């Protein structure tokens, strides 16, 4: 009984829409119920997985096609009315696809590298927000194509900031890796080689 109630709260919990009391109740229940805890783990893992899926691109004529087909469905209702209830999930999924596609169509024009005119895969500056305006660095590669939204006047500001001048102290990082008895160790801040010949070190962990 309380398990059912807990499972009904999963969605709201994931979306962070629980009231304080609900959250407390759910956490107390999860602490005491291994099955629900497992269920919630699976649920959140599934949602995380879905979240990492790549965003599909909708074909440009999708909206027209969907609208045309829905108009057709409206004038021929028999095709739908006979459908039993088990179609509901499929319909919901289709609706979700339409919503996603429309959202994608709305978003896509804001991503210029996907637009028809722009270079298909170059990094683009976001010019609308933030005090830090991206700047075109002088002496960049030959494919520096002068993206939109850059102020030429900023070049001087960058030159002073450019670490690649002779007075700058630049270290190019490539961590040394040592191999010993079939074990490879990357020497960086988090890993140190055993200092067998040096002074005795006590390591706590």
């Amino acid at each position: 009984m309380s398990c059912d109630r807990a499972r009904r709260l999963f969605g709201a919990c994931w979306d962070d829409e629980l009231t304080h009391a609900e959250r407390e109740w759910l956490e107390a229940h999860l602490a005491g119920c291994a099955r629900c805890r497992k269920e919630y783990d699976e649920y959140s893992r599934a949602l995380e997985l879905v979240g990492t899926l790549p965003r599909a691109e909708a074909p440009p004529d999708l909206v027209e096609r969907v609208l045309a087909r829905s108009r057709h469905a409206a004038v021929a209702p028999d095709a739908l009315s006979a459908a039993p209830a088990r179609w509901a999930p499929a319909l919901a999924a289709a609706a979700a696809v339409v919503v996603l596609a429309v959202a994608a169509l709305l978003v896509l024009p804001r991503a210029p590298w996907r637009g028809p005119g722009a270079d298909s895969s170059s990094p683009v500056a976001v010019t609308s927000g933030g005090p830090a305006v991206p700047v075109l660095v002088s002496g960049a590669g030959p494919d520096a194509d002068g993206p939109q939204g850059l102020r030429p006047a900023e070049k001087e500001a960058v030159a002073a900031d450019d670490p690649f001048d002779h007075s700058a102290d630049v270290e190019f990082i490539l961590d040394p890796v040592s191999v010993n008895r079939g074990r490879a160790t990357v020497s960086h801040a988090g890993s140190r080689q055993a200092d067998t010949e040096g002074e005795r070190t006590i390591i706590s962990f």
Partner: protein
Amino acid sequence: MLPACLCAFLLAAATVGAARPARAAEADAIAERAGHSVVAVLAQRTVDRPARRGGAAVSRTYTRAGSGVAVEENVIVTTASVVREARRILVRTSNGLQVEAQLAGMDPVFNVALLRVPDLRLPWLRVSDAPARLGDQVVVVGTSYRAQTTRSVGTVEFIYREPRTSLLQLTNVVQPGNSGAAALNSQGQLIGIVQGEMGAPESGGTRARGRGRPSGMSFVMPIAQLRPVYESLKRSGRMPHGYLGVSTSAEVVRSETDGELVGLGARVEGVQPGGPAERAGLRRGDLIVAFDNERVDDPEQLARWVFETRPGTTVRLVWVRGEVQREGQASLGEAPDSLPARTTPSADPDASSARVRTARPSPAARGSAGDGAVAVDTSGR
């Protein structure tokens, strides 16, 4: 007989001749596409020296330059070794855009850092789902001097497997600044990020920096290992580490065959009261020799394995007490600090305070250092 041999030879030559350019073109296309997703990461640290008598205060900027890979529109993965201690991080794209990046989180144990660049929209790289196998062709794309793109084609040569992690050894030649570079499979998907290359052979316990000539042996952290760290850093800005609650020192013997020092295990110098180690039955003086069916050579290794384990995991330990081998299970707690604490007992027996030898916690962990520290008895020796 001879014509048949000649025919076979010609056929083989033609096949090889036809296959080579196709493969090269494929690698070119992969590198070309991925090049836009790879950025140069410039981590700057300014050190102010106080004014000397009669002089002005000097401020000097040090930059650590590495590579980064876009895995989302404005999220970049790089190594912690590039961005550690940085006050300001700049990201430079392949087409010459330079923006300031925010450090979303870093983990010095797994050597991963996450940067956010709200001012950029980067074409991100798809991530491979299949684990890398020996012999797989790998294209490495990174940045080096003057933020130039580097490219190298090679294969997976060996996979170093540890209890919790693994490291791919590649034949690819990597350049200084390639830490954090992208390693791509033949489908152009990200299979890992470059950590470094084979350093110069160690001598006398000092770590030589393998600089100058590329060694042709590079090492890549595979994506399976990167993913949980990335997700944890993205969610909370930090990665939880396992905690055993022991202080250990190295136990070595000199080999009779070659005179080399051989590690025997980790000698327990102190146990945190009520900690996971004590609950598992460990006592001061025990010699830990195995962790989850892997032999422990030295305490650094054991500390790394414990830190690489998620808190709450139960690990199997084997130790020697007196002449008897014992074993037990320890359910790891959560480490209070981002790195294992190292202390050197002072050479002067009268001095009771231990000196901290490497205290370089990440900025995120600063402030929590010292919580739950293990009591180390340094007077007993």
